[in-house]
């Protein structure tokens, strides 16, 4: 059975939305995705969401009585997991059509869950006592090791932000659209050396939703799920096996490529979750698009920029487009838009797109291989 993404949409706006609660963002995204799919809530019998307020409240607010629920919550990659799990559930006959919603008042914190972990948690005992202030001071901690072992330069790290801003400048919905230079990155505030503000993701409000179903039930040109993979590594970044490579990135990518039976040459477009500037570097290497230590030069040479041979993060990414706290939904949305030929910064001839999602600080990962045609 061919499983497809039959509907995909974001909230009407992303960015600063203090007039929206977290729940409202879920519901608006859900309505938009249903309209995009040409379906109603009564066509949906499965639901998957993560975080506040969870699948039961979202389904109830929509007036749905689901036959299948998934609340897999593994950070910003959760939505990629949901797509994979929904496909398995549809193939197993547990449900027919799944709605996956995301809404997060990440910036305005309206109706949002509480931040923080207890002092008796793993994080609370073995990382927070050292003055960690969220992802900008922990997700980033692998970078100096990577730089020492591979020779990645500070300039190359900054080039990641520069390259993604080129895409964002073509996307009217992107929060930051002015072109920037390496010097601009270096001139921005040091957040956590070696990371400057422009090498860190945004914090925004917003949401998105997907409809996953069988090809037979899709009402509009479908986006096929050719393959997927998922994995996890360590719940705290200090226990990551090797600071220069993500095991979860590698394993989820290998699984997705194997299921889809594709090679790297088949890939026209790539989305890599970019909470911070080093993450696309790890993603390019761990997915096997370039060799170890080569990603920094690859990006700096423009290969991932507009006109390059491997368009990467074409919405502007978490660094320039939007990042609600769980960015994975937006990476999937951009792949769908590119495959439908509807993206703001459309790349000509995109037939196959790969999405790599990250959860936590290199904690979980999932990869999707999406296409607008069957192989």
């Amino acid at each position, binding site marked *: 059975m061919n499983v497809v993404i039959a509907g995909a949409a974001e909230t009407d706006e992303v960015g600063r939305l203090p007039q929206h609660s977290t729940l409202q963002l879920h519901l608006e995204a859900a309505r938009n995705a249903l309209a995009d799919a040409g379906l109603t809530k009564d066509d949906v019998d499965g639901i998957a969401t993560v975080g506040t307020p969870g699948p039961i409240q979202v389904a109830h607010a929509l007036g749905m009585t689901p036959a299948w629920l998934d609340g897999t919550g593994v950070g910003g990659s959760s939505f990629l997991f949901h797509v994979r799990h929904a496909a398995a559930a549809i193939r197993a006959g547990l449900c027919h059509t799944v709605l996956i919603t995301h809404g997060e008042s990440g910036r305005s914190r309206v109706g949002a869950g509480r931040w923080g972990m207890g*002092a*008796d948690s793993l994080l609370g005992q073995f990382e927070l006592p*050292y003055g960690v202030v969220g992802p900008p001071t922990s997700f980033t901690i692998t970078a100096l090791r990577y730089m020492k072992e591979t020779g990645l330069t500070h300039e190359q790290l900054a080039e990641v932000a520069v390259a993604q801003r080129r895409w964002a400048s073509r996307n009217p919905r992107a929060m930051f659209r002015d072109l920037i230079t390496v010097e601009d990155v270096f001139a921005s505030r040091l957040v956590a*050396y070696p990371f400057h503000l422009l090498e860190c993701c945004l914090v925004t409000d917003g949401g998105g939703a997907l409809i996953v179903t069988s090809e037979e039930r899709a009402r509009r040109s479908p986006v096929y799920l050719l393959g997927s993979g998922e994995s996890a590594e360590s719940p705290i970044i200090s*226990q990551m096996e090797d600071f220069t490579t993500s095991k979860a990135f590698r394993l989820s990518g290998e699984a997705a490529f194997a299921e889809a039976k594709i090679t790297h040459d088949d890939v026209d477009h790539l989305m890599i979750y970019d909470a911070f500037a080093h993450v696309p570097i790890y993603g390019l290497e761990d997915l096997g698009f370039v060799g170890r230590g080569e990603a920094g030069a690859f990006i700096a040479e423009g290969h991932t920029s507009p006109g390059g041979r491997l368009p990467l993060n074409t919405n502007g990414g978490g660094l320039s487009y939007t990042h609600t706290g769980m960015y994975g939904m937006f990476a999937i949305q951009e792949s769908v838009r590119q495959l439908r030929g509807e993206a703001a910064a459309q790349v000509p001839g995109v037939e196959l797109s790969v999405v790599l999602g990250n959860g936590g600080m290199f904690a979980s990962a999932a990869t999707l291989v999406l296409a607008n045609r069957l192989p």
Partner: protein
Amino acid sequence: MKPAPKPTPETQPFWDGTAAGELRIQRCQSCERHYFYPRPSCPHCGSDQVEWVRASGRATLYSYVINHRPAPGFEDAGPYAIAVVELEEGVRMMTNIVGVENVPEKLPLDMELQVVFERRGDVSVPLFEPAGEPR
């Protein structure tokens, strides 16, 4: 005040160690490898025949960031390094680096370090300082 960890039953021996001025980690009696953080069975081979041992306290600097937006309790610390060190026994842990100015020039990766302990309320947390250097 800087954040203080709250022990759980499986981590209590670690925090009892730091209170006594010792860095205690676990070692598997089956595969003879050390591991960290505290867990009731070996993450390498799965054996539950594990023991607590006293680590040497010697380590090297594996990686770090220098945080410019202090956490609560760190307001007077200035930009400070949040570091991951690799113990001589092969395991890594997050920590802070003390006894040296926290600037990139003074914190080369792989520099040699030794453990010291800082009291926070009822518990002591392990920190690391340059080995053999005057404080």
